[in-house]
């Protein structure tokens, strides 16, 4: 059995969780060995997932242990929050997405963070909907734009008058020369 690159990408997450049947696992490993691009993608993906897992277990163990502030944990916590925030915005790629979904299902505090983030999004968007301008800018601006046009009419009038005056002067000079 052989799989293509697209199928490989879809299966990466399940491979790491050891959720593939033997047959598909062998096909996955064969593709991993033969395809350089997929091998690089898999290495990067593995690193992201391991970072997320480590971050999660650091946070869980430091919260059980207690009181002393843990700077590394705060940075890692920020990283996981970044992923959750990007998940809520649908900005993760498909595999990161699946991973966060699994964390949501398995860890109640992650689920709570996601729910609070969705509530915040709704609150902000409702707020933006309610915001209304204090005046109708379109009416004021259209008045300004139409005033700008008027001088052009004045310029045209001036040019016409100047032309008439010049013609009269020329006729007068012609008559005077006769």
């Amino acid at each position, binding site marked *: 059995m052989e799989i293509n690159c697209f199928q490989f990408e879809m299966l990466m997450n399940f491979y790491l969780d050891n959720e593939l049947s033997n047959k598909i696992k062998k096909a996955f490993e064969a593709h991993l060995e033969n395809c350089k691009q997929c091998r690089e993608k898999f290495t990067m993906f593995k690193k992201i997932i391991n970072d997320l897992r480590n971050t999660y277990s650091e946070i869980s163990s430091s919260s059980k242990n207690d009181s002393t502030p843990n700077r590394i944990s705060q940075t890692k916590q920020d990283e996981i929050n*970044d992923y959750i925030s990007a998940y809520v*915005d649908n900005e993760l790629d498909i595999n990161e997405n699946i991973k966060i979904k699994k964390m949501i299902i398995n860890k109640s505090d992650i689920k709570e963070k996601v729910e609070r983030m969705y509530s915040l999004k709704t609150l902000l968007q409702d707020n933006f909907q309610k915001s209304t301008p204090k005046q109708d800018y*379109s009416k004021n601006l259209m008045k300004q734009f139409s005033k700008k046009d008027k001088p052009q009419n004045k310029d045209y009038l001036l040019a016409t008058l100047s032309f008439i005056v010049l013609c009269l002067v020329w006729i007068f000079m012609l008559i005077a020369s006769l």
Partner: protein
Amino acid sequence: MTKINYKKLPFNELIYLTQNSDIKATAELLRRIQKNIYTFFCHLCPPNNSVSDLTQEALIKIVENIKSLKNVENFKKWSNKIALNTFYDSLRKEKRRNKHHEMDEIDLTVIEDHKSKPLDNCHSKEICNKIKACIINLPLNYRLAIVLRELEGLSYEEIAKLTNTNLGTVKSRISRAREKLQTDLAEYI
């Protein structure tokens, strides 16, 4: 001759007519986009006259330069860029004038919601005021990122291009902004 109902025209057609100096189309376009532009500045600047001035300035620039927009599909990105540049220009002018905005002391009573119905309680006004103040109190980069995401609906990539940063930075700015807002607005979430 069929009369055009400008209010029902699709947005792209409206832009096209505005580019061809159709006055009614221009008026309708301004009517449709003014709320978004106003809300954008409202949540970026502390409440004072500059919100109104900036809104007008941005709308004027949009109309005056609309003929330079080659693809009408890009109107949103293009107009966002104009609004953002208008905001940056105002920051530079403020710096030169040496004004100092006290970000922690925003007078919430100045932020008014004129269209709120009388029964639409103080509660709604209070929440809107509080949310506005909390967003304005965010550091500038976080504020920009969250407003461009939540109000304008731009993708992380679009925000990165508009603000000359990279995807990772945008991701963390939005996340930090949300964390701060969740803390400040905890009672409403």
